[in-house]
């Protein structure tokens, strides 16, 4: 009986210390955001005369693969995707009456434009990709709109630009409040 008790005691002690160790190790925990192919996110904030739009999309929707380019065609695809992402006019059409001018554009691509890794390391590279299987493109666009009151809707052209996109979850924030809506290729106008 006492042996069992002793055993339980040791197990609980080791669990306790184990968990504290775990706690220490996990102090800097890893993050894995949600990532669904075919779905992209659009975050829209407006206040005063500033309109900010952030576009997040799995690379799969944009270029059709989620690994570093391994051939010429793939590096070309990445290159043209980044080129398109740098032109907000291709992604959203804002009502001309609102007189919005693009102030800044930042595009982050997880994939390099040119296949920089050499073939000797290609094995290693694919291993890496198994660890980090999902990669996202992000685009950050900032506009200055002279007539903000005329900005009543935004037509999302992303579906035409990147046909791999099936659903865009839109969250928008303004002085009128917060809203969430899902847009699809058939229903691609955001009413503000």
């Amino acid at each position, binding site marked *: 009986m006492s042996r069992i008790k002793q055993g339980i005691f040791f197990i609980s002690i080791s669990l306790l210390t184990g968990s504290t160790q775990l706690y220490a190790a996990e*102090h*800097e*925990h890893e*993050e894995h955001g949600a990532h669904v192919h075919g779905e992209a996110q659009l*975050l829209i*904030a*407006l*206040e005063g005369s*500033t309109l*900010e739009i*952030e576009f997040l999309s799995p690379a799969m929707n944009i270029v059709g693969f989620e690994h570093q380019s391994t051939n010429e065609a793939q590096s070309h695809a990445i290159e043209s995707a980044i080129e398109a992402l740098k032109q907000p006019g291709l992604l959203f059409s804002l009502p001309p009456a609102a007189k919005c001018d693009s102030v800044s554009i930042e595009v982050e691509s997880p994939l390099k434009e040119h296949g920089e890794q050499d073939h000797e390391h290609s094995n290693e590279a694919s291993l890496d990709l198994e660890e980090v299987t999902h990669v996202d493109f992000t685009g950050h666009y900032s506009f200055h709109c002279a007539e903000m009151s005329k900005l009543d809707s935004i037509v999302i052209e992303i579906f035409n630009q990147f046909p791999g996109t099936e659903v865009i979850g839109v*969250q928008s*924030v*303004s*002085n009128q*409040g*917060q*809203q*969430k*809506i899902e847009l699809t290729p058939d229903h691609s106008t955001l009413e503000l």
Partner: protein
Amino acid sequence: MAIISLALKSLLNRRFTASLILVSIALSVSLLLGVERLRVESRNSFANTISGTDLVVGARSGAINLLLYSVFRIGDATNNISWNSYKKFSENRMVAWTIPISLGDSHRSFRVMGTNRDYFQYYRYAQKRSLTFHQGQPFDQVYHAVLGYEVAQQLNYRVGQKIIIAHGAGKTSFTHHDDKPFEVVGILSPTGTPVDRTIHVLLQGIEAIHKDWVAGRQVAGRKISAEEALQKDLTPKAITAFLVGLKSKIATFKVQREVNNYRKEPLLAILPGVALQQLWDLMGVAENALLMVTVLVVAVGLIGMLTVMLAGLNERRREMAILRSLGARPGHILLLVTGESMVLSLVGVTIGLLLLYGSLLLTQPFVESQYGLYLPITLPSLREWFMLGLVGTSGLLIGLIPGYRAYRYSLADGMSIRI
């Protein structure tokens, strides 16, 4: 006109069956409208509870879960968040104000919430309305409490009264913090939100009553009196959640990301408006199912009317024949029978409406105190008028069926019918 009065008299002559039909139509209509009312008003009351708050931050769980327990006091927190994390984000340069929230204790089934004075300054409900005092003033001492309107009404509390807070959120708690009573210093004006059913104290108050508690129990040998507790450091170690107001809406997503990517503690920041929308998406399925059921109940009521009218028709063939012999055309017979159904459905709808308002009047105080749902007695909305119109039209269309049969009979039957 003569036909309508004839229809009315004919119905009056069969008042027993007619009133049974009326009851079934009226009940089904009031059920339909009642469900619609509840749906709309529960949405309104949710949407009105929080306004002007840009983010809600709590322990990482689901967005809906966090919104429900922090703002609506429904359910419990999965975890608390550390005071240090709260401090860090409240000092963020993009943050205009924060309201800390600490939940977990109760008083006679009303939740006790620990917060600070910023709550009265920054919390907004409905269309950006701020909290006002019905009586008294905000708390400024550790053992002060401010009651929601409903709490004061139901428990008949006044400013100056002492109350004892119970440990835990259950309806009947066996452990009370009876050594440290709180003095009521203020009562808030009614808001129609969960605030009405909340007792507000300072975070330090929550900390003080738990000073001599270890692992959820009061330790016998370590009793700390109310005065002694005041001498101790009453900075809380953890809170349940906090509301954030930002200097600029533009920063909303940025701050949200900063919170969600905070390395030291798994936190979750949600946009209350967006989380509410997610809640509607979830509830929409159940709401539609409920609406479908009530629509079917109305259909059953109308079909009941059809059955009775058709069954009665055979008995009334002689009556029709007499009418015909007195000069009524077959079209008049059609109008008479259809008119009867129409009168039945219209009167049924009217009684249903009266029934709805009657039950609203009766249940309003109960629903408000039990579920925190305020059901305003207002005229029917456009959607409700539309529903009523639909029921009336269906009644008319259904009435055409016995009407047409009576029309056929009246063409074929002579005076001497063998029934």
